[in-house]
């Protein structure tokens, strides 16, 4: 057993942390949050240059990492700084799916992603699918040597910035069967593709996507017809490691801000942290933090396992982090008092990031159910 990071990962963590502490200040982030695009292209390319995107891909894919612990290191730091840039969507999900399934031609896009010049979005969830990965009503049918896509996709994060959407659609099977789902690359601006964009509560943007007889060539399909589900599950597993790590990093910031505040804010002539009612709750937060860190390690360390073991570990981790994250966010706000309720104050943003991870790829209860099912299997 060894719980130390490798030298490479340690260096990545250090340089990323330093960069974000310097450049991703509260003021800089507030400006990004108020902007129209939902993220900062300058920060994006600077972080690409730093190797943050490359760290999410294996050497064979053109990167220099790609394992669970690489993902955890990167996303912990992104979470710590409350970063809203779409690393999960463009890199981990979008780039990851192309790397996993794409033809040689398609793989070229991964290079653009790593270089920071291409954005992607994973258009999978639908208005009625909630957290059910296999539920796909969007259809794909062959017509005159082309593929025709029809359907609606919900809360597609980063859709407006994406040069290509990765759209899931059903070629066969019933609406919630894993078999029969394919992925297609749909370039932005394709006829019949309509986006209704909006900001997200915790930063970034998403869109409701309508596909109305969208035509793409057969070569736009990623991988074999109807066989994409395994790759989707594997990428979503990686996304779940990232979300867990992001929430954990953000929780550390929430705890740090709270600790600082407890010892600087004075009421009744003394620092409020000297009131035992708060001191004990702060201690509980730190205890939960350690548990959250271990949960992330468990999930990251099993990402390359066979699906059942992988998903069981990940479900456990996300269930724990969902609980610890909610506690951390709510307690940090409460112990700050009114100041934490203001949009400008860093904790407000951090708390939103934490709680909103609970709405991507399954909430606390969803992961509990998955954990129960996978443990029984």
């Amino acid at each position, binding site marked *: 057993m060894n719980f130390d990071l490798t030298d490479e990962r340690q260096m990545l963590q250090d340089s990323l942390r330093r960069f974000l502490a310097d450049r991703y200040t509260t003021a800089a982030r507030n400006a990004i949050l108020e902007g129209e695009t939902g993220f900062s292209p300058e920060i994006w390319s600077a972080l690409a240059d730093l190797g943050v995107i490359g760290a999410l891909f294996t050497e064979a894919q053109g990167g220099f990492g790609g394992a669970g612990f690489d993902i955890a290191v990167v996303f912990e730091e992104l979470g710590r700084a409350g970063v809203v840039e779409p690393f999960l969507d463009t890199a981990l999900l979008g780039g990851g799916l192309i790397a996993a399934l794409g033809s040689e031609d398609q793989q070229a896009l991964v290079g653009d992603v790593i270089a920071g010049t291409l954005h992607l979005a994973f258009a999978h969830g639908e208005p009625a699918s909630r957290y059910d990965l296999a539920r796909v009503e969007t259809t794909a049918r062959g017509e005159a040597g082309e593929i025709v896509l029809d359907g609606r996709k919900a809360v597609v994060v980063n859709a407006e910035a994406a040069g290509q959407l990765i759209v899931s659609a059903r070629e066969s099977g019933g609406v*919630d069967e894993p078999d029969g789902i394919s992925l297609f690359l749909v370039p932005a601006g394709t006829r019949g593709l309509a986006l209704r964009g909006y900001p997200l*509560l915790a930063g970034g943007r998403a869109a409701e996507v309508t596909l109305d007889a969208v035509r793409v060539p057969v070569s736009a399909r990623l991988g074999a017809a109807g066989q994409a589900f395994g790759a989707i599950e594997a990428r979503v597993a990686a996304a779940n490691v990232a979300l867990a790590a992001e929430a954990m990093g953000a929780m550390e910031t929430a705890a740090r801000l709270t600790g600082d505040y407890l010892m600087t804010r004075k009421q009744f002539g003394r620092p409020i942290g000297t009131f035992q009612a708060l001191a004990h709750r702060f201690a509980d937060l730190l205890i939960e933090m350690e548990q959250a860190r271990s949960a992330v390690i468990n999930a990251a360390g099993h990402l390359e396992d066979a699906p059942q073991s992988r998903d069981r570990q990940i479900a456990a981790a996300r269930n724990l982090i969902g609980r610890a994250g909610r506690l951390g966010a709510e307690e940090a706000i409460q112990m700050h008092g*009114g100041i934490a309720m*203001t949009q400008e104050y860093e904790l407000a943003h951090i708390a*939103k990031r934490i709680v909103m991870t609970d709405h991507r790829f399954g909430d606390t*209860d969803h992961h509990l159910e998955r954990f129960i099912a996978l443990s029984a299997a």
Partner: protein
Amino acid sequence: MDLSYSPDEIAFRDEVRAFLAEKLPRETAELIRRGGHPGKAEMEAWHAILNEKGWLAPNWPKAFGGAEWNAVQRHIFEEECAAANAPRIVPFGLSMLAPVLMKFGSKAQQDHYLPRILDGTDWWCQGYSEPGAGSDLASLKTRAVRQGDHYIVNGQKTWTTLGQYANWIFCLVRTDPDAKQQEGISFLLIDMDTPGIEVRPIILLDGTPEVNEVWFTDVKVPVENLVGEENKGWTYAKYLLTHERTNIAGVGFSRAGLETVKRMARAEISGGRPLIENPHFAARMATVEADLMAMSTTNLRIISKAAVGQAPGVEASMLKVKGTIIRQEINDLARRAAGPYAMPFASETALGDNDPIGPDYIGPVAAEYFNNRKLSIFGGSNEIQRGIIAKVKLGGGK
């Protein structure tokens, strides 16, 4: 013991329902049902409608133009209003300042200000908290110095809810800096149009401009705007705080909120079945509902013990703590029920139109979840309330 409403009470409830069905503006109710925030005009219109009926001031004695309802009537009214998605009654003038004026104000102040609260001439806000004086309110620093027939006020208030709409503010100010903290505070009524007052908005974490900073620079306030005696303001403030807490359990809001959650959970499909049938979600809902059923009775038990117009004692702190925990838990359920559609920041300004982003049964539930974290912070934080309960019950006296 009799848990059922008497025939009179049922008749009253029916009367309230009929009134709401007839008089509550449809668009306002619809806005609130979707989780929107009524603006100044909607709130004032609703006040006027209630005032016309004589129902705007349920807790005021009839002599002052109130309805003088008993606890059960108030409970019924609050519950029916919440269920019908009526705007909440802005409490600052009606249920905070008014009781203080009735008890400690001069006849001239009562005659002047109380009718203006009822007819909507004045919109009051509450100027208690300061950046350095939150839970420790008695440490407040805003200074009022007597000069002839005026006070000169300098300092800053903060967290002033809806101060942007207000034309008057009631303030706690320090008039004797040398006395013991609680003994140098006075209760002043200040016209917001007086030169030297500046109101700056504070945007809350859900994007709403709900609170403000209010700055005072050499603001001249006539001495007749002092309530009661100079340096006795703390006594009046404490009296006011007990009133601030009377409807703090928010049972009506919780009921309405739980109904909304149920509506969402019936419509939302999870794993091929309505979410309401999901055992984990159903268990969360049932647990809150069990809490709420007991809370409703706790609330009635406690408030019916207190005479009309009077506030309960330490039990009010209990209502506040438990009532806010339940409301916040319901907000948490609502955001869970929304699934991925909790993520959009669904403000009208962000969208440029009113079309909901996801299914129309999902409102801005996550924004509401974050906004209502305030419930356990303001009006005396839950930690402060627990401190009061423990101090009283462990023998610190009443």
